[in-house]
């Protein structure tokens, strides 16, 4: 649980966030401090404790399987940065 091996460049790439060299420096230092603060949790004995994912335990919430109206095609594309022929266009993936 050490923050010392934290590589901001590598994790930013995993998160798909391009950082400037300046940002790498600032965010890297700030995240180092935050990770040190989080280390504090190591003091708690959690060996006999179950994790909580949600405060209100609810499992398998079901509703009737009935077709409902959905967003019209045109509305779904309305905010697209590059709509082409009723589709979302992206840069070429395969040459």
């Amino acid at each position, binding site marked *: 649980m050490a923050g010392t091996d934290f590589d901001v460049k590598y994790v930013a790439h995993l998160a798909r966030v391009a950082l400037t060299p300046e940002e790498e420096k600032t965010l890297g230092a700030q995240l180092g401090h935050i990770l040190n603060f989080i280390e504090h949790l190591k003091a708690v004995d959690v060996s006999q404790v179950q994790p909580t994912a949600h405060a209100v335990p609810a499992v398998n919430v079901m509703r009737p399987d009935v077709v409902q109206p959905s967003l019209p095609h045109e509305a779904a594309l309305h905010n697209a940065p590059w709509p082409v022929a009723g589709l*979302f266009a992206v840069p070429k993936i395969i040459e």
Partner: protein
Amino acid sequence: MLNQLTFSELTARIVQREISARAVLQACLDRLTQVDGQIHAFISHDAADARAQADRLDAEVARGVGLDRPLLGMVIGLKDVFAVQDQPLHCGSKILGNFISPYDATVVTKLKAAGAVVFGRLNMDEFAMGSSTETSAFGLTRNPWDLTRIPGGSSGGSAAAVAAGEVIAALGSDTGGSIRQPAAFCGCVGLKPTYGRVSRYGLVAFASSLDQVGPFTRNVQDAATLLKVISGPDPRDATSVDQPVPDYLQALDGDLQGLRIGLPREFQIPGLDAEVKSAVDQAIQQLQSLGARVEEISLPHADYAAATYYIIAPAEASANLARFDGIRYGMRAEGNDPLELYCNTRGQGFGAEVKRRIILGTYVLSSGYYDAYYLRAQKVRTLIRQDFLQAFERVDAIVTPTTPTAAFKIGEKSSDPLQMYLSDAFTISCNLAGICGISVPCGFTRSPRLPIGLQLLGKPFGEATLLKIAHAYEQSTSWHKVRPPLAAGGGADGTGDGRSC
């Protein structure tokens, strides 16, 4: 003066046709014109759309239709985090570009059905990540009580707009204190309902297991009215809970005899400001004189709440914000392939605080670190929740300051994220435990004169008890009637004609 009236008094006047919904809206628009240049609570507003809503309501009143609607003609501002059909949604960020919502959030549908005029996009920290509204891509909001200070956050625009009288009430969202903390800093009532009480459909997700929608109002009675309107299960949000919605107004009977209120000894922290402590101590004495029994309790894991929160919230945020990739909506940066396009869009579109949290969240979830950080935090969360549930076997509610200090200066904490995070010390554990909490005004610091908030925390789905205590306290004090110097007006701001909203 419209600003002294409750929803029920105002709607009664609209029903009697003593005042029109259009006139109530106009009072708000006038106020916005007078003061928003100074405080900047709004990112944008659509006056023509609001007028059309108000005119529709007035026409219905003239025909005698829907006169019993609880929010008839009430102008309700919305944090820029809720979807309103055909209106812009930015979430305080650049990355959403010119996004226009294709549908209404469930709470918006409910407000409209209750007769509200849904109005404006209120400023907020980007993606609700922050405690000061300084991380907004649309500039900062200033505290109406002192323009050199922040209004709190992340729902700073909502709190400032209600305090300054630009809207009658507002909705915000609270993930770690984002309703209660700005309510305390701006001197209004702010309520975070129990997780699952209010639908999150159409609320842009930050941390899905912590986020809840709640009201900002000028008094506790209005908070009760607004909570009743927005509560209840929703088939579109599987985490909303199918619990009956009580008539919260009926709970406001002023009777605190026999109620037990717990005072957690862990909240006596070194950073607690002396004036805040003294105001809260006096409020506790007031609660006792109203018949409540106050006893010391212990929440042994309270000290771990901030560290737990700053693992769980960023982890959930890193997953939720993966959708902002420049493909289907929002801004898109150049890239030779989709991967480069994602990285550039997110690098240019997100601000520093959002990047910090996404990267932190990605790290604590990444292979090799998941057990040490995320899983451990989820286990500590269990202990924090158990502390509260055990305390609630002895007491009906818990009382604390809402914040360790009054509103801080613009820029005071923005360069030190950790200090900013620690300003949420008293509000964070409520979200981790999934319980409910309210902040009500309980005094002022001397110089400068800034509002202080009293926080009451309640059992899961115990909002009625919280509102009852908060209301009895409020009615025995006059803090909620004091308006910021900005709102009291002067000169040519037009409050003398009784049209201030």
